[in-house]
């Protein structure tokens, strides 16, 4: 069956949608269609990808308006009677076609105080940790840095507060460090000031789009909000507590 893909073409923010028709087959994902179009109709169509298996977080884009990994979005889950729109992520400066400049993310990460272990437990320089303590952090360490959560967060996407707020990805990252069984660093002060955790108003959009299923809001952000702020000064935390974690999303 043939389907139409409506892909954003252009550079540095200006551009237009172009329609491409291509044959689809069993089990195909959006990235396959993009590759077919690239190989036969638009050889210069810019797109990032690596693993084709949801492991590297390279192929992030907005498919029919939703932030997704193109390699994990099956055509059978989309309505092919209408054109499938594919656009670059909106929260970052546009480079070309489906590629955006995500370098801001790497700069932000660099500002977060790195892992600082306690002195080793054993004479041979090694540590002892229990699986259950490790398990608590593994959820956050699954992150493939696709930046889809950053893309969807309104603080970055709509309000462009990139200078004040590190975004959900780096709250997950900070959480992974803070809950690391061996880490001894203190990051609470900058979380509140430089990293702007207070800007998050727990809309949970980030959690909804995370392809790794990380409970970004419930497991990373809310516990950290609780740690860094006095309850009295953060009404949202209080509210969430009262409502046992249920807050309406957008």
């Amino acid at each position, binding site marked *: 069956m043939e389907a139409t893909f409506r892909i954003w073409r252009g*550079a540095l923010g200006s551009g237009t949608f172009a329609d491409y028709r291509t044959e689809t*087959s*069993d*089990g*195909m*994902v959006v990235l*396959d269609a993009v590759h077919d179009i*690239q*190989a*036969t109709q638009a*050889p*210069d*169509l*810019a*797109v*990032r*990808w*690596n*693993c*084709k*298996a*949801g*492991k*590297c*977080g*390279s192929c992030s884009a907005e498919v029919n308006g939703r932030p997704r990994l193109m390699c*994990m979005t*099956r055509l059978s889950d989309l309505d092919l009677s209408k054109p499938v729109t594919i656009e670059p992520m909106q929260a970052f400066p546009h*480079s*070309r*076609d489906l*590629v955006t400049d*995500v*370098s801001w993310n*790497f700069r932000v*990460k*660099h500002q977060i105080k*790195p*892992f600082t*272990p306690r002195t*080793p437990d054993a004479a041979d*320089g*090694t*540590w*002892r*940790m*229990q*699986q259950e303590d*490790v398990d608590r*952090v*593994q959820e956050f*360490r*699954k992150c*493939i*840095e696709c930046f889809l959560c950053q893309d969807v967060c309104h603080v970055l996407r709509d309000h462009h507060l990139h200078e004040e707020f590190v975004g959900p990805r780096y709250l997950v990252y900070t959480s992974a*460090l803070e809950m*690391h*069984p*061996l*880490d001894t660093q203190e990051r609470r002060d900058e979380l509140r000031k430089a990293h702007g955790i207070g800007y998050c108003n727990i809309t949970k959009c980030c959690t909804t789009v995370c392809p790794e299923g990380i409970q970004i809001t419930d497991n990373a952000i809310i516990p950290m909000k609780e740690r860094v702020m006095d309850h009295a000064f953060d009404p949202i935390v209080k509210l969430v507590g009262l409502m046992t974690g249920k807050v309406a999303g957008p």
Partner: protein
Amino acid sequence: MPTWDTIDHDVLVIGAGGAGLRAAIEAASHGVSVGLVCKSLLGKAHTVMAEGGVAASLGNVDDRDSWQVHVTDTLRGGQYVNNWRMAELHAKEAPDRVRELEAWGALFDRTSDGKILQRNFGGHRYPRLAHVGDRTGLEMIRTLQDHGVHQGMDVHMEVTVVSLHKRDGRVCGALAYDRERGRFRLFRAKAIVLATGGIGRAFAVTSNSWEYTGDGHALAYHAGAALQDMEFIQFHPTGMVWPPSVRGILVTEGVRGEGGILLNSEGRRFMFDDIPEAYRTQTADTPDEGWRYVTGDKEARRPPELLTRDHVARCIVREVREGRGSPHGGVFLDIAWIKTHLPKAAEHIRRKLPSMYHQFKALADIDITTTPMEVGPTTHYVMGGIRVDGDTQMSSVPGLFAAGEVAAGLHGSNRLGGNSLSDLIVFGKRAGEHAASFAKESAALEPDAGEVGEAVRECLAPFDRPSGENPYAIQNDLQRMMQNQVGIVRQEGEMLQAAEALRELEARARRVGVTGHREYNPGWHTAIDLAHLLTVSEAVIRSALERKESRGGHFRDDYPEKDPASGTINFVVQKGPDGEMHVRPEPVVGVTDELRRLVETFK
């Protein structure tokens, strides 16, 4: 006039996978200035995809393990054409390198007494792979990346190196373009480390990404460095076969390590039917013994599914050829069956193999806790690569080092699972250290501007032929040709045809054309990568023709047996003064009496 920016570093590391990152960290720790370049974004290199684990004889799960056993396993797996010195250093140093990752923040799964847990893998006598579920590579690359960026190095992301430049026989520069804007940069450096990974994209069915076009192999070759073992390519036995769009994507060996079994269409566990002599005494006699092994019974021997990859892949090919394959041309890999032995099996599978569970659920609509997977061989890894000194990782070109998949020697004719991730950190460190000391002892040399200008012009030439050959089409034809004629089962006639076909593809590549602009233009990038793919394909074909026997990742239908005389040589590929590719045999390196004795002891 071609133009470029010039950037200076003492040590330039090309490639930001495990090997490149570890090399850069080490070089920086020796106080030299370090640049790190990679084609993709930082953290997206192939290493991120590794699943099963990293091999090191920590002895946390079975204290009978030691470096001595690890080195003999590696040599047996490689069928003794390894660089024995590298196998020895690797086995001795891997435990320290793994513990060091923990000091930098990596979190491995734990034993009940709080140490790093280790799992079984094919060809390893004892449980040896430190792991994090089935996403060990992600843990490793993220640890190295997050630690590395704080050690003082300049990272140049989405920058592709296209040529190396020498003066007075020494390497002194690398020309590159940035993908985003298509501008050229000349990196001047006193020492260069190649850590560019593999060549899987030369084949049609592969677990490898677009990056694996053999760039480092080709760059080194054209700079005059010797390559070796290019006939040895690992076809991993278990890639996905259905749906078509995911064909080749890897199914980790960890599935078999956790008890997964291979079945043909008749429901027969065919791996019991063909156990090689060299492994007979180490292999289980019954399914029951195999199960006891994977659940930690130290008296039991491993199930035949955990024999080496080359052997398992060929058994699968045989089943399919003889009409006992699965509906889509593979065989069945069943992990769901463990529910007959294990309460809460589904939960166990989801915990031990979360990304496999997710991968099949999302891409093939299959729940692996209830349904067998369909799997078949996929091009996975190249054992061959740049010939290096075992201790320093320097190639035959002064100042040019190599580490990781792009280097050859450690794995011989067949790599054991888990021995790559450990390879990266052991030899990445060594390459970084020796590149740093080489740089300290050397003065900076100036690459020849005329030569650099010529290289720039060559890169841009496809833009002058907008209606030239489509780069994707040439790549596709090359992949199909290599898959069909130089794949898992080889013979002279087909390979000679392949060598002919290659000439034609080369001619087409000279007419390749691209449209559009230099900014982020994948058509152009593919055109440039083509040259590398053609060079490595020629090296593979030429070496495979020379090795008239079957060994490890090289199987010849016309010479199905091992030839003892060929078991003491490596085939070395080098560019001659005539500009042509030459292949010559060289004796295997690093064999000592001590290692020979160990091989005997642990037979």
